[in-house]
């Protein structure tokens, strides 16, 4: 059972204004690093989804700060901080972060959809 209130869940599913977007990159060998702007948690989930062909270029500590600041979601931010410290590699951390974010979005959607 989620402890999220409806207003919190709605905020987690919202999009931040363009000026507050998170600027990340997608790493594609040998094409290079391509800028990607993220504005919602849902987009962060899609961005982090493991792919055989490219890598998300992101500092999870900064992602955690961004989530805390823009979505007031300390719980998710702390989880990301922890797994950044504990994961054996950045790729493993991104994969774990993908699960965390996806689960959080699902949870919020569950609350909003009733």
């Amino acid at each position, binding site marked *: 059972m989620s402890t999220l209130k409806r207003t919190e869940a709605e905020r987690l599913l919202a999009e931040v204004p363009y000026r507050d977007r998170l600027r990340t990159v997608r790493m594609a060998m040998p094409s290079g*690093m*391509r*800028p990607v702007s993220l504005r919602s948690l849902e987009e962060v989930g899609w961005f982090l989804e493991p*792919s055989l062909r490219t890598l998300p270029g992101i500092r999870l500590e900064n992602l955690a700060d961004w989530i805390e600041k823009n979505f007031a979601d300390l719980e998710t931010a702390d989880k990301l901080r922890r797994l950044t410290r504990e994961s054996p590699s950045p790729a493993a951390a991104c994969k774990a972060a993908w699960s965390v974010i996806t689960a959080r979005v699902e949870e919020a959607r569950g609350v909003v959809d009733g």
Partner: protein
Amino acid sequence: MENKLYGFAGKILLVDLGAGTTTAVSSEKYRQWGGGHGLGSALFWDYCKDKTITDGRDPKNVMVVAASPFSGTNTPSAGGRCEVVGVGVGQYPVSWYTRSNFGGRFSATLKYAGWDAVVVMGRAREPVWLDIRNHEVAIRPAGKLWGTDTKTLQQKLWQRLLEEAGGMEGWYRLPGKRGPEYSTQKPAILCIGPAGEHQVAQGCLIHDSGNGAGQCGFGAVWGSKNLKAIAVQGSGAVAVADPAALAAARFAAKEHYAADFDNPDLRHWGPFGVPAWPVIFFDQPNEHRRVQACQGCIAGCRARFNVGYGNEVSCQETEWYSPHVIKWCKGDKQKASEIVYKTADLCNQLGLNSYPMGIGLDWLIGLREEGRLGPGKEIDSKLDWDKVGSLEFIRELLEALARGEDIGALVADGWVQGAIKAGREADWRSGKLLFTYWGMPEHGYDSRLELEWGYETLICDRDMNSHSINFIFWFVNISVIYGFKPRISAEKLVKVATDKMKPWVSGPEALDYATANMYSDAVMDMVRWHTFYSRFWKNSCLLCDFRWADLFNTNRPDLSGATASETAGEQVFWNAVTGEHLSFNDGIARGRRIWHLDNAIWALQGRHRDMMVFADYVYDKDCDTFEFPFYLWPCRNSAGEWEYTDLLHRRLDREKFEDWKTRFFKKEGLDPGSGRPTRAGLKEQGLEFVTAELERHKCLGREDKV
């Protein structure tokens, strides 16, 4: 044997579109330049009567499509590449004499038809296409072919040429020495789409489905010349000086350096030995695919799918629109895949270079979010920007860009020019519009970190797009991202790689990108080596950038790559094909001479060292705008030991970089005050023949300063 032009077809085709004539000249005089770029520069010098032009759409521009001695042979990952040179369109502040390159089978077919290069001059009175069937050449009216996209054009021409063959089902007819010859091989066609016809800066040249000479607006050059296509059919062969040596080198390359097909090492380091794998960056449409490659490639990087779209597309074109598409499709990758690959197809069909689009679209979306772009806004656009990410939107946007309408009118002469026109110059200077050098988008490697990329681009004419050194970044950083110990230590890697660069560099410090070493002579020598390597072995001999130079290779016990090796080095293939006795370093010296010839042309176009600068943000801001986690590169630490070090959070120092340029000019015998050629420097390079023209235009540099 020495006198025969082994490797060369022997003739160059001169096409004067203004006069409507075609002429053949011997390749003999141009042999010294190799092929591809060197050949193209020498031909440009001889046939372009006014080298001061700075817009490729000027009718005085001369454009060369050039094969190399390797074209049409089985030299690994070289047989199908083709070079294009001439004055470009859309660069900033000046569209330089420049280059582009594409793969496939065009250059090989050109050779089989008996031609080493095609030189296109003047402007046709009406749209035409060039029909090359072995030695027979005709300039033919394009009629209704003008206005078609590149796919339709190629299909129509294939059909027409079949019909003209006389109805033998599936067989094309060519003139042979002893009467007609027949082939089932489809003509190789290089053509433009609507973007080229409308002469927009993003107009490119397309061959087959997905081979494009993208950068520098050569599609616009053809459009300005009223040239829609060149179709080539050839039934000849390439005379190879020592076929047994060529076969032996190919086998050696396969056995010692290439991937083991049955048991590939998926953690391999080095470009030559990677397994064949499509270089596509978004989930492919499905698993039903065939490998596709340029002619003679040892490890193809393309694919064809049974769904009928996305065939042969590769690299950046499979990724630039994807973040928007994923959002539009709400994470449904299957649906997104269709849009991403159809978008790549659309670009190719319209003959549009997709390279600037990812960054360009990012900028436009920002302007729209700020309320500056939209119907009746500061930047007027009637496109439905609420639908960014959809196929519908991208079709509209690409059509607009290709036809120079709506937002396409703003950027028709280039993106930086468009920003300036819109009063948004500050966006370019600040990096908001991430176009770093020569009015071109950052390639994806920040010039504040990846030094050879930035420095080399500035001493040349365009985003240099040569990955030999850059592969260091990829193999090291991917290992660390996945938590693997790097396969090669930093110390070993720099040693193995710089051993290949000797005597141009003195030792491993040439690859030390630490802040303390970033403006050093050692790094400068590495940049010189790589520039000249690329000018000859890649751009002139047409070895594919994805596979060469092979500086390190974990398929080898000594970790030393195929480059310069005695059994499978570049020079081994060259000598087997041409019968020359060229050393690996002789090739680099040729590349240096070619670069100096190019620099003479740039000088005539008005280049001065003050123009050779990055966008301001490179000097004004640290590299930490984006969230990538680290940029590891081999560096020496304070104890003098080599380790992989994060280069993030630094910028370029203007003064120190200017000093670097001064030292570079001096080392190359150029006037350090202007960067222009000097009489003595030209003599040293055997380029005395350009001196008079430079002098006439007052473009010779001062000797006393060198």
